[in-house]
């Protein structure tokens, strides 16, 4: 392959790769400001379970759930952090009280596997598109290796003509 063709392919890939990477970074960015907010009952109820009911605490109204909510409210009034409250709940009810997997040990895989899978899929898609472009996909057969971004040849002329008609 000539350097010119490689350069054009790389340019095309850059066009979609940059937004894709930006989206990926935004998706992976930690919600740091939210983690520093003071805990509220409403927030914690949505992150822990009612062990007896098997539902989120915020959906539960059983006597056990009422006691659990009172326990959380008391810890909040004592100034405990969200992490300390969750630790206290785990000490009382075990790990299953957490609605979200823990960020350590085997449970960490619940967070890591989707991210790794996303990155692998993104890289695979990138390589796939590059190979497709090199193979001349989407362009006229005779100009496949030189296909720039956007329409070429007759398509480009027709597009220019259409745009000229609408040129105010």
């Amino acid at each position: 392959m000539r350097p010119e063709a490689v350069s054009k392919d790389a340019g095309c890939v850059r066009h979609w790769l940059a937004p894709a990477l930006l989206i990926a970074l935004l998706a992976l960015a930690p919600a740091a400001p939210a983690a520093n907010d003071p805990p509220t009952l409403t927030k914690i109820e949505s992150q822990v379970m009612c062990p007896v009911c098997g539902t989120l605490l915020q959906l539960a109204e059983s006597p056990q759930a009422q006691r659990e909510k009172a326990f959380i409210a008391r810890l909040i009034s004592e100034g405990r952090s969200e992490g300390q409250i969750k630790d206290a709940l785990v000490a009382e009810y075990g790990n299953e009280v957490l609605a979200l997997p823990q960020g350590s040990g085997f449970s960490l895989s619940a967070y890591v596997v989707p991210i790794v899978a996303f990155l692998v899929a993104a890289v695979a898609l990138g390589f796939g598109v590059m190979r497709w472009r090199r193979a001349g996909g989407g362009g006229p057969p005779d100009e496949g290796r030189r296909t720039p971004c956007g329409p070429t040849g007759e398509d480009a002329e027709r597009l220019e003509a259409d745009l000229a008609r609408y040129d105010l």
Partner: protein
Amino acid sequence: MLGVLAVVGLLVFGLVSKGSSGVALGEAAPDSPLPRLEGGGAGSLADYQGRWVLVNFWASWCVPCRQEAPALEEFQRGHGGPRFTVLGIDSRDLSDDGREFVRRYGLSYPQLRDGDGDAAHNFGTTGVPENFLIDPAGKVRLLLRGPVTAEYLRDSVAPMLPEEKS
């Protein structure tokens, strides 16, 4: 093909791991160490090997548990000793609430804590209270899914216990 096998394998694993738990009459009672509700340390059924044990699953938020507690305490005072004990297991409950419950009803029999409900699950309980009479060999001899009454303890449990030698 491999994907289909993986999915089927996961389904089978899920069914097996969710499989039925619990005990039936005549079966060995499940036993694993649990923290004591008061005083620290751990305890288990094995601590009472050679005794009849009435295992009582309860929780402080459970209304029927409050109703049966006086009858259990009275039965313990009448029959507790080297041949028999009631063993309370406070399940899926806050430890402070559990200790307050023990104080309020003046319960003198030993109490263990089953915060995550694993022991209750192993016994196959569907709620609280539930009661299991375990013989000295560790086999389940009586099973009551619900609160005991003084009448039940007198008519069903007491006749199974060895007579006290005076």
